[in-house]
């Protein structure tokens, strides 16, 4: 994977940039139900949305934001590197190609129900062209007090020095809410996504922050299905990752071979089971909270 990808440079920028903390963002699917509601909320939070895309609605505007038929058209006027994708799942692949072909480097992929084959093809396409996808089926990414690209509520998040990476949306809000309440703010909170295939998996999320001095700790919210947590533990072991990490794993009591809401949350045999994930974390002495509300207390103990 590309180690040089600097997500903070793209999302926030450098102090000398004229648009530092105000990076332009394009919303694909801006006129849809979901896209329009969250465009409004993202803007309220401070996200600089410069253009929207909806095929066949080019020339219209949404609350003063110009709408284009494609990212290609939008890119003639705006030089954005970030896109929030809110299109229906069946149009996801073509939306990704349009974005990647026209200067977008960070794609935040909100839609649920993207076919696995399309997700794999999208990721390959993005990777070949030096772009990164967060998601699909992610609540998005938020840099508290700067901007958010996604559907997360703003209230749970407070500016600070921990990183929250979560396979679940509401648990990302829930845990961040408890952290903020305990006085532990977040530098970034990023939703991995609930699908089997993730553009930015847990290891890649860790790579994004591993050498940043302004991030002091990491909270990982995992769930049943796949082996992302087990692989993360191997990565942590291999690289000697030193920042304190607290984990939480949802789905200890879920039955096998039942899809628990997320396409990716399913256990086959021992593959994907909560026990496997929890014992992996325990093996490298990463504490695993039993309940979301326990996370801040455990983290504070580690930070002492």
């Amino acid at each position, binding site marked *: 994977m590309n180690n040089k990808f600097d997500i903070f440079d793209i999302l926030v920028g450098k102090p000398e940039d004229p648009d530092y903390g105000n990076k332009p963002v394009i919303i694909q699917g801006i006129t849809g139900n*979901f896209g329009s509601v969250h465009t409004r909320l993202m803007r309220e939070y401070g996200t600089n949305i410069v253009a929207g895309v909806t095929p066949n609605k080019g020339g219209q505007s949404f609350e003063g934001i110009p709408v284009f038929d494609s990212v290609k058209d939008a890119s003639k006027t705006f030089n954005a590197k970030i896109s929030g994708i809110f299109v229906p*799942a*069946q149009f996801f692949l073509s939306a990704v190609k349009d974005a990647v072909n026209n200067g977008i480097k960070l794609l935040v992929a909100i839609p649920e*129900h*993207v*076919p*696995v*084959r399309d997700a*794999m093809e999208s*990721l390959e396409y993005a990777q070949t062209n030096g772009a990164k996808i967060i998601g699909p089926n992610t609540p998005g990414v938020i840099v508290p007090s700067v901007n958010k690209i996604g*559907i997360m*509520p703003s*209230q*749970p998040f407070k500016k600070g020095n921990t990183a929250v990476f*979560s*396979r*679940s*949306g*509401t*648990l*990302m*809000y*829930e845990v961040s*809410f408890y952290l903020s309440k305990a006085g532990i703010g977040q530098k970034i909170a990023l939703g991995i996504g*609930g699908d*089997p*295939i993730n553009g930015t*998996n847990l290891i890649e999320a860790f790579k994004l922050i591993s050498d940043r001095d302004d991030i002091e700790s990491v909270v990982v*919210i995992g*769930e*049943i*299905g*796949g*082996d*992302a947590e087990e*692989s993360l533990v191997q990565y942590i072991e291999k690289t000697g990752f030193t920042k304190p990490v607290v984990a*939480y794993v*949802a*789905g*200890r*009591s*879920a*039955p096998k*071979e*039942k*899809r*628990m*809401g*997320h*396409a*990716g*949350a399913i256990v086959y*045999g*021992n593959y994907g089971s909560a026990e496997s994930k929890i014992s992996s974390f325990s093996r490298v002495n990463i504490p695993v909270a*039993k*309940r*979301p*509300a326990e996370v801040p207390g455990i983290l504070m103990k580690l930070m002492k």
Partner: protein
Amino acid sequence: MKLLEYQGKELFTEYNIAVPKSYLARNQSELNQIKDKLEYPVVLKSQLTTGGRGKAGAILKCANKEELVPKFTELLNKEVKGELPKVILIEEAVNIDKELYISLFLNRGKRTYSLISSSEGGMDIEAVENKVIQDISISGLTQSSAETIAKKLGLSGVTIESFSNIVIKLAKLVREKEAELAEINPLAILKDGTCLALDSKVIIDDNSIFRHPELGKYMQISELQEQAEKNGFSFVELDGDIAIIGNGAGLVMSTLDIVNDAGGKPGAFLDFGGRATTETIYKALEVISKLSKVKAILVNLFGGIVRTDLVAQAILNAYEDGMISVPIYARISGAESEKSKKMLSNSNAKLYDTVEEAISSLVQFMRMSK
């Protein structure tokens, strides 16, 4: 969508993967129509989604015509893990020399497909040793790499070609039908050295089904499931008696765990997703109301984004309409929570500030009512 064995084998046949000669019978009269065509011995296989059929006695050998009807009737009435078959697959027995295992699955971490094969078929693959694991590009598998796998498994003669062909066809099936998993366990090597699929396990990517109208006929979905899906809910029925409703799959799973830790038994998982409005909560309660085993309902809504009075209104409506009568324990810490507590003060529902408090009251209630 997990296909039944015979459905997977229909796909195998479409892709020229050999399977035993077989018939399907749903009832006695369908059995009568095929009775005289059969060449004995035959194997009767109950068509269930659940695994471990052999151990559960849901697969029976039948040596002659006389045994057919009683064994058929036995299987048709045999429940395995709460599931009754709708149809029995009747296959003519084959002469097996050796059994292999092959499984082609979506390797999530590697974002590719992987093939696991082993020269020890018929058993639980986690216990199998001498596995050969090979990553396979979505564009397929070449003849030479398939043959390399065959040789690694120690196959020889005509079996190499037969095995390779099956692996290549299976990869084609996975790609074209958008399967997450296609497994043949066991894959039999017959006396003549050719290979034949004795079983099938195929799981199709649910999110791709809109592109596969030809697979629509395999959909078997309960009425309740359908009602839930129509409303955009994720719904899973569980064994216990407490229904758990919330906004977000992870949150509901997490709540399930906490209920379980406290000694409660979850009976349903319902994630109503994005927005908590009076209407969505009411609809969610409507789905739950169809489950008579549910003795109490836990509602866990992530606070901060929810107007709790809207939720309280839905609960009140559900009680007033006589849709539900069981108690509801709700954790809804959002705007208007004092108003909501008042709204529900004369009802069978209680609001709590934390999920832990809601669960401990609920579990206490369940204990007392037993």
